């Protein structure tokens, strides 16, 4: 610290304002480039960013976490009994029961090829003759009930043991079932596995007789300006003058109900929060007219098919985990009961008493609910493939209604060709044109917005002109009336009328001068119209933990810990040796320089290099690591095919990049320890080890803690290496699990906000950022205290020396 005499101090007072000037650039730049984005990130985290600009969305993004991952407690909450109507313990049992049942069914025992494979292979396997006989009988009679539960259990156990046979079975599952399950899990993104995609469920068809009311309402109802704009916008898409006209034409069968346009209109209108053409969320118009569709289906004799298919798809959804049972258990019971009552399936009635679940005796086999359902579908529809295809399509249609457009926006990406195949008559080019035109997947076409803006301005100007005309027409009368009462009473009714007219003319003239359009209000480039996707919490519904934020946090923490522990241990060891006076190592500077080198090299380069090193190719080319394995007589091992191997590679890179750095920091820490301590230790006869554990380590603790915290904060931002190890899935035979195993928080944020997927969940990404911020802040506070102590100590020292400036 410099010492300033009194004279200087007084003088420097007049210079203080320069302090503000000097730090101004920093403060301004920080506010613009860090603080403002940080605050907007906070803001976005409470917004439904899929639909439009930041509409206030409360804590939905956080709730998404809570619901999907932390809300197991809700299931066991005190109000559960009351909410669900059964005891928690009973519920859990039922849930497990159904899960087991559905899993067992996935076996599909009545597929002919599969069963024959089982019989052939099972004869030499652990399957008893009894089971094989039963299986044959079941196959012959197409009835699973021939299989005793003992045999079934055998098969199940055996299946898990002999996965190749079960593979044959599952591969041979008739294509019809594949198609059916396509309903349960449509649309997979190119890279992401099926589990990533939330199932589009065909729930029971909504019925209502409010359709006519709705159309009437559309024609005469009172709407806000935004709603009118929305309706006009949508009407323009349909090519009709008004929406009411379009809906009437649909009802009369003039427009095809399969038309995506119809879903589009519907989904945009019927949501509780529709998004208007301006990108704002408005109170949607309720459009409950599925009745129309139901009529359509019933007229074609598909009603029971729909019920069966939808229930089937749902049941398979439970089985593969794409639908959370505890969200849905009520409708499940209803579905099953409906099917049972309709004679489509034979369901086991469960009775729950005192915490135990009992099956009623009159029921048939417990595990064949789905099987019977399938059989029903087979018997009734498989014979006629077209009919089935149509029925499937109709089920989808019903799902679209139920899902309010989500399916078409998310799910249709891949199934669209299937859809075309089924519907036959539909013109695919028309559909794609339509999609392109409205910018279904991308940010809304900016030119479109300009058009809309222009139209809005024109209509506003027209309105204003009309207002002026009317006001000017009424003006003389008002003036006359005001003059008639003497023209002085400024509180009179006549005065108010007159002023109102004059004001309306002025403001209308203003409007003509500067008409307000759409663009002035929102930046249309950011208006996304993923309007059917308001419930993005459903993205989180994927059961696979590693696909999720929690998984990302877990991965990050895990990889940091595995990399950090050897790093700090090695750094402690090396720093002890490097500072050991007895050893007096030579070439210390060179070694330090070499060990620090990895830290300055671009992490991306290192990641790509390691990918080359450990990559695996089936094309006869072996990477370096494979060559080493082969040289030692091993089989080439696909490192990136294993989640843990990949994690370890990432951890090793982190370890390798950072041990030199940590070591240098620790060496600096050790050399700053007062030498007299070591000298006195030596006089007392302490050996190296004692000196190290008694003096060095305790005094090094703050530095170690500092290293720990900085490394942790750095580790939380792990991105470059896992991202680039992972960048090209095709190259290193990545599968879904693989990608998940090294997905860190930043990768997750990156994917959600800037990924290649159509739907960018900016809100979710922002919420994740905020969680990261909170964690980082806690760690920062920690390090702040560590460093402040150091400063405080320094200040005290300075104070003692007398060099203070007050």
């Amino acid at each position, binding site marked *: 610290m410099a010492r300033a005499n009194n004279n200087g101090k007084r003088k420097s007072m007049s210079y203080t304002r320069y*302090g503000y000037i000097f730090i101004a650039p920093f403060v301004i730049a920080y506010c613009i480039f860090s603080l403002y984005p940080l605050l907007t990130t906070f803001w976005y985290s409470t917004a439904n960013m899929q639909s439009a600009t930041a509409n206030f969305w409360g804590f939905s993004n956080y709730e998404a976490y809570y619901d999907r991952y932390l809300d197991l407690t809700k299931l066991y909450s005190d109000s559960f009994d009351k909410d669900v109507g059964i005891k928690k313990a009973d519920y859990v049992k039922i849930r497990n029961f159904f899960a087991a049942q559905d899993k067992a069914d996935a076996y599909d025992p009545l597929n002919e090829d599969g069963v024959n494979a089982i019989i052939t292979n099972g004869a030499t396997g652990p399957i008893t003759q009894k089971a094989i006989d039963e299986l044959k009988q079941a196959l012959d009679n197409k009835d699973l009930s021939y299989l005793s539960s003992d045999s079934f259990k055998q098969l199940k156990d055996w299946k898990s043991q002999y996965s190749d046979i079960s593979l044959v079975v599952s591969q041979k599952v008739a294509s019809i079932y594949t198609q059916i399950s396509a309903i349960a899990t449509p649309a997979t993104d190119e890279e992401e596995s099926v589990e990533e995609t939330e199932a589009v469920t065909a729930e029971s068809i909504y019925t209502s007789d409010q359709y006519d009311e709705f159309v009437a309402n559309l024609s005469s109802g009172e709407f806000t300006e935004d709603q009118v704009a929305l309706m006009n916008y949508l009407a323009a898409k349909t090519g009709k003058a008004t929406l009411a006209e379009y809906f009437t034409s649909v009802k009369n069968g003039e427009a095809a109900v399969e038309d995506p346009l119809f879903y589009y209109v519907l989904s945009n209108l019927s949501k509780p929060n529709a998004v208007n053409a301006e990108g704002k969320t408005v109170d949607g118009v309720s459009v409950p007219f599925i009745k129309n569709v139901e009529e359509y289906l019933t007229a074609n004799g598909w009603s029971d098919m729909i019920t069966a298919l939808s229930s089937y798809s749902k049941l398979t959804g439970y089985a593969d985990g794409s639908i959370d049972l505890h969200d849905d258990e009520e409708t499940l019971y209803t579905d099953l009961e409906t099917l049972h009552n309709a004679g489509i399936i034979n369901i086991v009635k469960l009775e729950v008493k005192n915490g135990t679940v009992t099956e009623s005796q009159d029921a048939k086999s417990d595990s064949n609910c789905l099987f019977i359902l399938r059989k029903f579908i087979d018997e009734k529809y498989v014979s006629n493939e077209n009919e089935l295809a149509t029925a499937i399509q109709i089920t989808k249609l019903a799902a679209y209604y139920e899902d309010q457009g989500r399916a078409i926006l998310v799910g249709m990406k891949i199934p669209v060709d299937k859809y075309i195949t089924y519907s036959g008559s539909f013109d695919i080019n028309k559909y794609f044109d339509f999609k392109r035109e409205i910018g279904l997947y991308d940010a809304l076409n900016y030119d479109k917005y300009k058009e809309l803006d222009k139209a809005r301005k024109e209509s506003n100007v027209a309105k204003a002109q009309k207002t002026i005309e009317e006001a000017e027409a009424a003006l003389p009368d008002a003036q006359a009336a005001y003059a008639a009462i003497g023209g002085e009473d400024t509180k009179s009714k006549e005065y108010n009328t007159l002023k109102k007219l004059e004001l309306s003319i002025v403001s209308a003239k203003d409007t003509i001068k500067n008409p307000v359009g759409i663009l002035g209000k929102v930046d249309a480039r950011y208006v996304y119209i993923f309007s059917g996707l308001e419930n993005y919490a459903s993205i989180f519904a994927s059961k696979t933990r590693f696909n999720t934020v929690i998984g990302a946090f877990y991965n990050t923490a895990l990889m940091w810990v595995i990399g950090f522990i050897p790093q700090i241990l090695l750094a402690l060891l090396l720093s002890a040796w490097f500072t050991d006076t007895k050893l007096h190592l030579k070439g210390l500077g060179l070694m330090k320089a070499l060990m620090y080198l990895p830290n*300055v090299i671009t992490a991306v380069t290192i990641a790509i290099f390691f990918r080359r090193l450990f990559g695996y190719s089936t094309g006869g080319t072996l990477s370096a690591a494979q060559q080493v394995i082969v040289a030692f007589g091993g089989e080439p091992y696909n490192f990136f095919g294993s989640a843990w191997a990949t994690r370890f590679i990432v951890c090793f890179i982190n370890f390798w990049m950072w041990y030199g750095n940590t070591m240098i920091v620790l060496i600096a820490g050790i050399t700053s320890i007062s030498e007299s301590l070591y000298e006195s230790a030596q006089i007392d006869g302490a050996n190296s080890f004692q000196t190290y554990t008694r003096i060095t380590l305790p005094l090094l603790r703050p530095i170690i803690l500092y*290293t720990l915290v900085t490394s942790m904060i750095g580790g939380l931002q792990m991105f470059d290496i896992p991202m680039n190890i992972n960048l090209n899935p095709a190259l290193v035979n990545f599968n879904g699990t693989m990608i998940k195993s090294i997905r860190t928080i930043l990768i997750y944020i990156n994917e959600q906000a800037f990924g290649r997927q159509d739907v960018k969940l900016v809100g979710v990404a922002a919420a994740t950022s905020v969680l990261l911020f909170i964690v980082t802040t806690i760690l920062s506070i920690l390090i702040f205290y560590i460093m402040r102590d150091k400063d405080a100590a320094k200040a005290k020292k300075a104070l003692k020396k007398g060099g203070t400036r007050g």
Partner: protein
Amino acid sequence: MSANNEPKLRSKSASIRAYSIMVYVVVIFFSILAVIPFWFMFMNATWDTMSIQRGIKLWPNPNAFKQLGINWENLAKRSTFSFAVGFKNSLIISVSATALTVYFSALTAYGLTVYRFKGRKTIFAIIVGVMMVPTAVNITGFYRMMSAMGLLGSKWPLILPAIAAPSTVFFIKQYLETSLSMEIVEASRIDGAGEFYTFNRICLPIMIPSLATQGIFSFLGTWNNFFAPSILLSRNEDKTLPLMVAQLYGDRYTDYGMIYMGLSASVLPVVIVYAFLQRYIISGVAAGGVKE
């Protein structure tokens, strides 16, 4: 501390010698481990793909120069990787960002050290506080802001934020407090120099050792930065070297020699710079525990 004790300890016989041999073995192992990948990278860059496929190459190709040329040509043919463009973009961004960071951090640190204005301590406390808040956290807001300003693909979003580098300010201020004496500032004022003149002409030169260290770290940080550029830059002609390198993967028909060539090309400039500056870098790490 070792100098005094050395002779006494040297005489301490064979057990220590054995111990020190063991230590040397371990230390040399880790020193080699730190550089072997780079050696591997450079060596393989001198080979053709066929040879690399036959076995790992830890020695240079006898025809290294010819093969280097071929690999370099193949690399230049790739549409997604242009060393010249990447290098140029990286250089522009890194140099500008470093210059801004160093100058404005020095300015801020100087302002906080020399002038006793109100709220000075609070501001410094805040700077220390936000030091550890990563830029990655606000990326969503930052991206949308840059998008709104039409700056996506531009270099400005990667350069301008460098004006505010809290950790650099912190370390420069640490340095200033021990090495800048107020007498110099006073003397300069008495001689009639303006405040900015004093800073630019008199105090800035005093800060050079600290600025150099911080400049090196700032440069390396910007040069190696991947997260923000990967989000903000999408066109090939805008991309920085790390982004180019990230595209340096291939399918199974990949030219391995070319990939190693590309990796080496991206590593080599840093290694060369490091070779000259390692002393300052290491003392900088030791002094401040600099971690990005």
